[in-house]
């Protein structure tokens, strides 16, 4: 089974900012799958998808280099912003211009 969330301990040391005396040695951490590493937090752009326009061709799904496009229950494309780096490849390859790349405001 795919574990989608990081173990509690991992969450704790990030939140509590653990130091050398408490962290596990050698950067050896409890196992979790790539789902638990939220790698999209540094991106300046995100893909915003207009589901009304989506024709379910799945071009974006296959072209996304980071597997950040998910197909929902109705087979419409959706962007997982926790992984999207805003590269724009999906928008470039969308035949109906349903994807817009927008600057993230924090």
């Amino acid at each position, binding site marked *: 089974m795919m574990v989608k969330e990081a173990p509690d301990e991992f969450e704790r040391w990030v939140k509590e900012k*653990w*130091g*050398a005396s408490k962290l*596990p*040695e050698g*950067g*050896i951490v*409890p196992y979790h799958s790539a789902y638990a590493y939220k790698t999209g937090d540094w991106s300046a752009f995100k893909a915003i998808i207009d589901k009304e326009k989506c024709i379910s061709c799945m071009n974006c799904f296959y072209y996304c280099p980071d597997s950040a496009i998910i197909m929902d229950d109705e087979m419409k494309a959706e962007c997982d912003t926790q992984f999207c780096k805003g590269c724009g490849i999906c928008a470039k390859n969308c035949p109906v211009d349903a994807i817009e790349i927008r600057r993230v405001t924090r």
Partner: protein
Amino acid sequence: MSGIREVKGMTGDEAVANAAKLVNPDVVAAYPITPQTIIVERYSDFVNNGEVDTSFISVESEHSAMSACVGASLTGARVFTATASAGLALMYEILYVASGMRCPIVLAVANRAFSAPINIHGECTDQLVCRDASWVSLFGESAQEAYDETILSFKIAEHPDVMLPAMFGIEGFIVTHALERVETLSKQQVEDFLPESRSLKYRFNPDDKMTFGSLVLQDYYMEIKRQQEEAIQRAYQVTKDVMAEFSEMSGRKMEVIEEYKLEDAEYAFVSYGATAGNAKAVVDRLREKGEKVGALKIRLYRPFPSLDIHEALSGIKAVSILDRSATFGSPGTIVQTDLASALYGKENVPSLHGYINGLGGRVLTLPEIEEIFEKTKDYHDIGMTTTTDWVGYRK
């Protein structure tokens, strides 16, 4: 066998291979390179003859050898390898991976000069430049010390307070190929000294999955490095304890530094590895001439035993450092700069005179060491607190 010691004639390389045989590591991944080749040859004989339970991995380079060792060590296996010179330089990248992932690998180094020009003979530069890799680093003077350090390196490295790799060096040909008298240990003695059970925290385990070799950036990297510093500081006391225990077991005195006739000495030689034997011989000669001189041998190079060295050298007027290693544009020889840092600002410290010698296997003769002694005295008499010279080369 109590009270009776078995003695065999062995070269330095054979001593390492025979000691490793008693340890019986789970994995040996090694690539042959002169003058270390015989260690690998002998060990593969043991594997072939079924005398050990080791998985022997023949690899295509030293980079692969150390990489295989890291992988094996992360499963909790006891791992041994050996190399020299260019091979150690090729391992250099993975040395940091091994220590960074806290793999207690033991590495025998047959110290040899770097190219170019190509040279296969003794020189300790290869090991000394690995000083910052967070490896415990030892030097041996003789085949006997090579034998002993093979065994005790495992115990230091695998100590739960340390969990860092350890390397020990013997000089190429001078020790590795010289046939010497070696007092051996029994299989039982080594098994008692080095128990099978050891810490398997942070190792591969099917029931408790871990991520190894993760990406750690600005936010956590420094904490992980700090852990290594604390571990190698702890390795200082662990090494002393392990050496004390080893001395008791083997009946051979083993300490982080070796003092020779230093009690009433006014001058001293500081050396490491095979040069220490010559230094002691010169001490005897000079003592006959009425000179108050002694010798100090550094056996543990990292962590650097600053306290022991300060204690041993305090009150001495001047020290000649016999350094069989090359360094260029440096404020002193490699070991001289370590000594200077260890002694700076302390009381009763000697003046430090470094002598780069013996590069590429060049012989440093006893009369030359006597000349070094006279030179050091002259430097001291005119009030120079630190000097560095090259000796034993044609101008």
